[in-house]
């Protein structure tokens, strides 16, 4: 989501913001001094009296590794000790902790490292410079003689820890940050430094919102309309209130809330609740009805999203053409931690505990709904048990629901509103359903000359606060990204869009538009290569001649995978390459087919994301994005019957399991370019690479996701 850039230098006034304490200075010139308070040179670093260095994380941690990444940037420039440096999530404070690529405090669009790379390095360098200058003055030596390593300053025989040196920093001292030359890096780019969240997450001590239990907490669940857009007419809570442990039942604008002394009691109460719904404005169609409307729309005119040359004429005169129609279902994010947050409204203040992804929006929305205002709303961010996009939306839906539940209870007690897995799977904010038609034409010489993509889907951004910025002439760039902005050189290229309407709420889902456009583009590209009689890798190489970085990842993946080499009988190999979030990723997939049953054996990925801050985290993100993408491509979908979601929980929204996981190799291009993101870009090429491998192995083009709906059987 590169919405807008509001680069803000943090250094202005940063030193003054700190509480540099000079307590009990010893005048003997030794670098040992007593001190009594924290040293906060800027909003991103704090040193406590015991010398502990803590990095303040403006981005949340949903597993993508930013708590390690941001800490790496500061520890690097500060020469802090990786073993002992601590992490802390920032409070909601849009001005101070803005994502400079989004214009709000929040995480998304694979921007965390991209927007923080210089800011956090500068913060670390600024902190170090204050310590160095203070220590030099204290020791009566030239600052140029002072070196720093792992939280210790040295000059000649003199040494001081940061905890000692911080006491010598005078209030109002001006930092003089000098960034390291990349050749001096000891952490950035190191193949593997331990994640900062590993120990807590392997000992059961990491705190997620689900684990927040303030004194007096009341547990709650909400009964929502079974059809999107339905509203409560009336409810009977007699049986619910009779359930042991149920303490109250209240109606809110979002649904009926059942409160209990524990989550299970609340859930039992909800199951005993009877609610009558008004479905006048609700979605009542089935998936087949929607699909018929999408297809009818595709037969009509679309809104132009790209129009180079004359695609229609070029298709008419092409030596060979291909046509393809791709179907993509609605998808739920289903993060491992079911959605929940804890909200307490008391004494004119509102406190939120949340795995918060979109602080600015949540603070504003909760402040408004609670009635105390954003300025009286505090958010304590805790670990998020996954998101994949779900936790960030323009309504802050689940935090607002928790706020409504707290408001309705009205006694000042903290309320924890928990979603069951069924609530989550049926709760909307889905990756939108898409139908995408491609026509492509190749010349007699085998060159790709024409491409026409026609896309039908519901817009994610239309009607949101960011709609004006990203919806141009009716075209939401996130509906057509990955095709309209393709890096392939195609002389005659047309992309058009039909905006479909439904009360079903839709949202960005890991890699947003690329999650479907990458598939259509890369499978149709293989079909075009076949029509041209050319090798899929060689065909793409020609089309990427003007995009050296993307071409390089394609070549690297092909080489590392042994493209063109022998495979066992019954195996197939497929390739896909796709740029998203300014990161280039190519993947080669290998599948085996035994008695018609497909097993995904291996994926070899090559990525170029500029400077690789934490290579091991990057590999983990690519592994995870591949797995997440493949699980959904293989067998996950959300469908409707008469407006109600057919799926309910993991048994029928069956996730990727360990037995499905292929071997994965990730190769990272060495680069000095500015870092881009990695949470999402590993996903788009995975499914098309597998689809192309399936075609190579068994001659079947997979046009409909999930693949099981197109007749593919998996081991």
């Amino acid at each position: 989501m590169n919405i807008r850039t509001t680069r803000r230098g943090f250094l202005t006034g940063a030193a003054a913001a700190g509480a540099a304490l000079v307590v009990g200075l010893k005048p003997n010139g030794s670098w040992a001094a007593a001190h009594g308070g924290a040293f906060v040179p800027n909003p991103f670093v704090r040193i406590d009296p015991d010398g502990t260095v803590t990095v303040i994380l403006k981005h949340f941690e949903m597993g993508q590794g930013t708590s390690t990444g941001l800490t790496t940037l500061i520890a690097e420039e500060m020469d802090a000790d990786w073993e002992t440096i601590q992490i802390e999530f920032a409070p909601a404070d849009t001005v101070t902790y803005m994502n400079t690529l989004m214009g709000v405090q929040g995480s998304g669009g694979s921007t965390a490292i991209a927007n923080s790379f210089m800011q956090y390095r500068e913060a670390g360098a600024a902190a170090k410079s204050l310590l160095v200058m203070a220590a030099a003055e204290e020791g009566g030596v030239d600052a140029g003689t002072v070196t720093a390593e792992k939280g210790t300053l040295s000059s000649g025989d003199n040494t001081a820890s940061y905890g000692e040196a911080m006491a010598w920093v005078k209030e109002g001292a001006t930092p003089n940050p000098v960034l390291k030359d990349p050749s001096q890096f000891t952490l950035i780019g190191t193949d593997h430094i331990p994640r900062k969240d590993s120990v807590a997450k392997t000992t059961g001590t990491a705190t997620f919102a689900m684990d927040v239990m303030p004194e007096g907490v009341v547990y709650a669940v909400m009964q929502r309309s079974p059809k999107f857009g339905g509203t409560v007419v009336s409810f009977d809570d007699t049986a619910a209130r009779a359930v042991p442990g149920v303490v109250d039942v209240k109606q809110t604008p979002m649904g009926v809330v059942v409160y209990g002394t524990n989550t299970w009691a609340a859930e039992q109460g909800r199951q005993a609740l009877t609610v009558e719904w008004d479905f006048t404005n609700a979605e009542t169609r089935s998936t087949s009805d929607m699909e018929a409307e999408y297809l009818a729309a595709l037969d009509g005119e679309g809104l132009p999203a790209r129009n180079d040359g004359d695609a229609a004429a070029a298709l008419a005169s092409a030596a060979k053409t291909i046509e393809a129609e791709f179907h993509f279902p609605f998808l739920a994010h289903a993060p491992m931690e079911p959605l929940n947050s804890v909200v307490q409204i008391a004494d004119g203040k509102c406190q939120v505990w949340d795995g918060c992804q979109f602080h600015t929006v949540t603070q504003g929305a909760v402040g408004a709904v609670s009635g105390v205002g954003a300025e009286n709303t505090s958010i304590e961010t805790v670990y998020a048990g996954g998101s994949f996009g779900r936790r960030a939306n323009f309504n802050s839906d689940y935090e607002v629901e928790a706020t409504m539940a707290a408001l309705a209870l009205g006694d000042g007690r903290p309320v924890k509103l928990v979603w069951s897995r069924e609530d989550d799977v049926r709760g909307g904010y889905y990756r939108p359903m898409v139908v995408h038609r491609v026509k492509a034409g190749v010349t007699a010489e085998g060159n790709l000359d024409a491409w026409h993509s026609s896309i039908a889907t519901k817009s994610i951004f239309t009607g949101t606060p960011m709609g004006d910025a990203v919806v141009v002439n009716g075209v939401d760039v996130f509906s057509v990204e990955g095709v309209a902005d393709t890096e392939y050189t195609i002389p005659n290229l047309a992309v058009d869009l039909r905006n479909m309407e439904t009360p079903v709420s839709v949202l960005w889902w890991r890699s947003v538009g690329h999650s479907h456009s990458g598939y259509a583009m890369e499978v149709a590209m293989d079909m075009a290569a076949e029509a041209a009689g050319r090798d899929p890798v060689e065909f793409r190489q020609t089309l990427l001649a003007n995009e050296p970085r993307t071409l390089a990842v394609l070549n690297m993946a092909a080489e590392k995978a042994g493209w063109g080499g022998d495979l066992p009988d019954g195996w197939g190999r497929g390739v896909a390459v796709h740029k998203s979030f300014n990161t280039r990723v190519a993947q080669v997939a290998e599948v085996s087919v035994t008695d018609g049953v497909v097993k995904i054996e291996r994926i070899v990925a090559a990525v170029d994301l500029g400077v690789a801050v934490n290579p091991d985290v990057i590999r983990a993100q690519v592994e995870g994005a591949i797995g997440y993408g493949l699980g959904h491509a293989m067998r996950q979908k959300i469908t409707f019957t008469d407006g109600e979601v057919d799926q309910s929980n993991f048994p029928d929204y069956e996730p990727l399991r360990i037995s499905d996981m292929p071997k994965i190799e990730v190769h990272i291009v060495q680069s000095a370019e500015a870092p881009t993101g990695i949470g999402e870009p590993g996903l788009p090429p995975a499914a098309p690479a597998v689809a192309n491998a399936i075609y190579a192995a068994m001659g079947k083009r997979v046009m409909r996701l999930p693949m099981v709906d197109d007749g593919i059987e998996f081991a």
Partner: protein
Amino acid sequence: MAITLNINGSAHEVDAPEDMPLLWAIRDVLGMTGTKFGCGVASCGACTVHVDGEPTRACQTPIGSVGEAAVTTIEGLSGPVAEAVQSAWQDLDVVQCGYCQSGQIMSAVGLLTENPKPDDQAIDDYMWGNVCRCATYTRIRAAIHEASSRMEA
């Protein structure tokens, strides 16, 4: 009526109905939060605890059925197998969001206790019921192999 549960070597009184799942007794009544709620239908393994050493889905285990059995949660995990598993998990940086990992580790300890030298197929078979939406599965396999070799050392 109060039920006495033997959790991590201590007796805990739980004043709750017999059909309350062990998961919610551990979490909401006793305040031990390392054991996670993921699906409520024994389909994801996030709530895995040991009951007399056997990996068990706490969300489908009524407290009335536990009796005097020894319940172990991630907070009470100890011994050479647990140490091998947790240290391998940390050294290989298996975790991403981390929410499923208590359950993954409880299952992995169960596997290695039963089969100290599992191959990939044995790992996949045993760990199949533990979902990781971050798809950390390649590292889970690798960490189990690593823990297995640490147990031999």
